[in-house]
């Protein structure tokens, strides 16, 4: 086990930014700390680095308690959100900085920097200063600088936050490849759930200083531990229903009441792909009108308005859309294939329910 946090709490002026958090990171893992801003994820990262000290609890690196070790002694590579390149030094000197501190021999420094330049595909930029680099190049230099002294782990704070969307995509793929090649334990902070799902082996999800769930991307997506995770990871239709005559209802939608007495409020959630649509108005139980179509590349996002005025979000591929010859304003019938009861935040969820009385779904799932 590479890194372990045990009941770690961090308070800033009486406010707990991180509250009793425990989790561990395995050797060689690529881990994402995910959560909305102010969730405490950056504070956790900085405590692992030694840039912040926990108010209580322990941080262990390879079984050794490091609470009292200064940031210099922890042998970590840290990449800051805005990269924090030394603006008065060129690329070579930036990457060589950590090596000089560790008193490497001049020839060794030269070799190591050349090696890093090659790994990070930034050869020929040695003489440039940070302001002469593009966003992507700056990030590569920042990571190269942090990895040059061979740290035992790599910590990245919002590594893709400061570059544009297109470069961000490239950098994600590149980070996965880099991690695969170097196999150094890597933890990165992000507020972008898509990024976390795509890049990491495992995800730690934070909200308001509390740890919500730790798990593989598929796990947190398919088995969210609570309502927060369910709503934060991916898009969800959320409806508040009330049980009447043994059925949970909102508008014309009906869900099984799960043996709850009349008057109970159940919060129901379902993914867009769980909404099945047909132009055959008698196929599915609910009538709706397609209000908006959002073009997103291969996928389309659709907003349906039910007769009662409820809006449901769905998604389908361009081909399915064409097959159904849909267009804004078209009348359809729809059903909700499976759903969750999001009883209340912080309580464990029952497993996903599936309606059994419908024909099996034909719509491809794109998670």
């Amino acid at each position, binding site marked *: 086990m590479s890194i372990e946090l045990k009941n770690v709490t961090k308070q800033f002026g009486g406010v707990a930014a991180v509250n009793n958090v425990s989790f561990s990171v395995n050797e060689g893992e690529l881990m994402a700390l995910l959560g909305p801003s102010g969730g405490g994820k950056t504070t956790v990262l900085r405590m692992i680095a030694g840039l912040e000290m926990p108010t209580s609890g322990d941080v262990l690196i390879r079984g050794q308690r490091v609470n009292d070790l200064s940031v210099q002694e922890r042998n970590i590579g840290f990449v800051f959100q805005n990269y924090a390149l030394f*603006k008065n030094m060129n690329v070579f000197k930036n990457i060589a900085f950590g090596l000089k501190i560790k008193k490497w021999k001049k020839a060794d420094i030269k070799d190591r920097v050349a090696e890093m330049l090659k790994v990070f595909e930034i050869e020929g930029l040695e003489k440039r200063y940070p302001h002469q680099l593009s966003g992507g190049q700056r990030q590569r230099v920042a990571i190269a600088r942090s990895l040059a002294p061979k740290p035992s782990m790599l910590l990245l704070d919002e590594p893709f936050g400061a570059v544009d969307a297109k470069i961000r995509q490239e950098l994600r793929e590149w980070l996965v490849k880099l991690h695969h090649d170097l196999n150094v334990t890597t933890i990165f902070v992000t507020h972008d759930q898509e990024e976390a799902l795509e890049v990491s082996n495992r995800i730690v999800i934070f909200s308001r200083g509390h740890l919500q769930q730790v798990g593989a991307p598929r796990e947190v997506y398919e088995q969210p531990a609570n309502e927060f995770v369910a709503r934060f990871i991916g*898009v969800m239709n959320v409806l508040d229903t009330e049980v009447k005559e043994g059925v949970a209802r909102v508008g014309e939608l009906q869900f099984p009441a799960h043996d709850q007495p009349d008057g109970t409020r159940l919060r129901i959630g379902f993914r867009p792909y769980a909404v099945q649509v047909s132009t055959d108005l008698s196929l599915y139980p609910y009538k709706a009108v397609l209000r908006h179509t959002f073009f997103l590349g291969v996928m389309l996002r659709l907003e349906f308005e039910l007769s009662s005025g409820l809006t449901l979000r769905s*998604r389908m591929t361009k081909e399915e859309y064409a097959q159904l010859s849909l267009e804004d304003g078209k009348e359809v019938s729809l059903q909700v294939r499976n759903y969750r009861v999001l009883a209340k935040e912080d309580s464990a969820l029952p497993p996903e329910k599936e309606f059994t009385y419908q024909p099996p779904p034909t719509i491809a799932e794109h998670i």
Partner: protein
Amino acid sequence: MAGPVKRKSSDDSHRQSRRGTEESPVVKWVLITIALAFCMVFLLLPLVNVFAQAFGQGLKAYLTALTDPDSWAAIRLTLIVAAISVPLNVIFGVCAAWAIAKFNFRGKSLLITLIDLPFSVSPVVAGLMFVVLFGMNGFMGPWLQEHPLHLFGKEYPIKIIFAVPGIVLATMFVTFPFVARELIPVMQATGTEQEQAALTLGASGWTTFWHVTLPSVKWGLIYGIILCNARAMGEFGAVSVVSGHIIGRTETMPLRVQSLYEGGSVGSGAAAFAVASLLALLALITLGLKTFLEWKQAREFEHAQQAIMPEKEADTAFLVRKDFR
């Protein structure tokens, strides 16, 4: 299609709005003429006059005036005072700017106000303060007189007022905001991330300061030092009160200019202007360096901005996709 059309229309409206707000040429030229005339009459003309008067009796007279032992002593004293007070103010300024820019603490705004105090106090009052503190009839004067400094078995009386230490103190008081004032905004803009990055790479606090902090604020620091130096050499009021005007011993250049000018003897007027011309030259050099550094700093700031700003968002479809999963 829509792009170019839109740009054209926005260009048009821009041109129109400029036309709408621009004053008539008459007003423009009258304002420019007034501003230029003021600069000529009140700034440039006196400056030229200083040099004209200094060299009025030839280069030889000019050099004689400057090499006069008492004038030479004044020049030397001015250099000594600046050589002591400027470095001390640099140390103080860096400490204060560091504290203010990088930490949050109680009384921070009080410290900022205190740093500005010398700007709002008349230099004469500042000088008087030191006389009241260290003068013969002041709070500390008698005590200092009774407690001479013992060094290598010898006794050295401590004399502050009407002596060099008093001049240094007064000069330091008057010039101490310059370095801090210049550094605070630069340090605040730089932030602490570069220093933290150095720490994560294993650098000690001292290494970080020398190799990361100081280089990133160097232009601001040099700028502050130059302003501080110019004021230290040119200060009259505060120094005049504490110096006692002992010719050849406690006279700095500005005081020497005054005493020569009031001396009234033949040629002393020209000698006054000769010394004054050195101060004027210092002002010109300061002005030149100041302009150069301002340009340099503006460029550096631009680079820093570029380094922080994300590149332009190219494709918004990617962003839309984000919330759809």
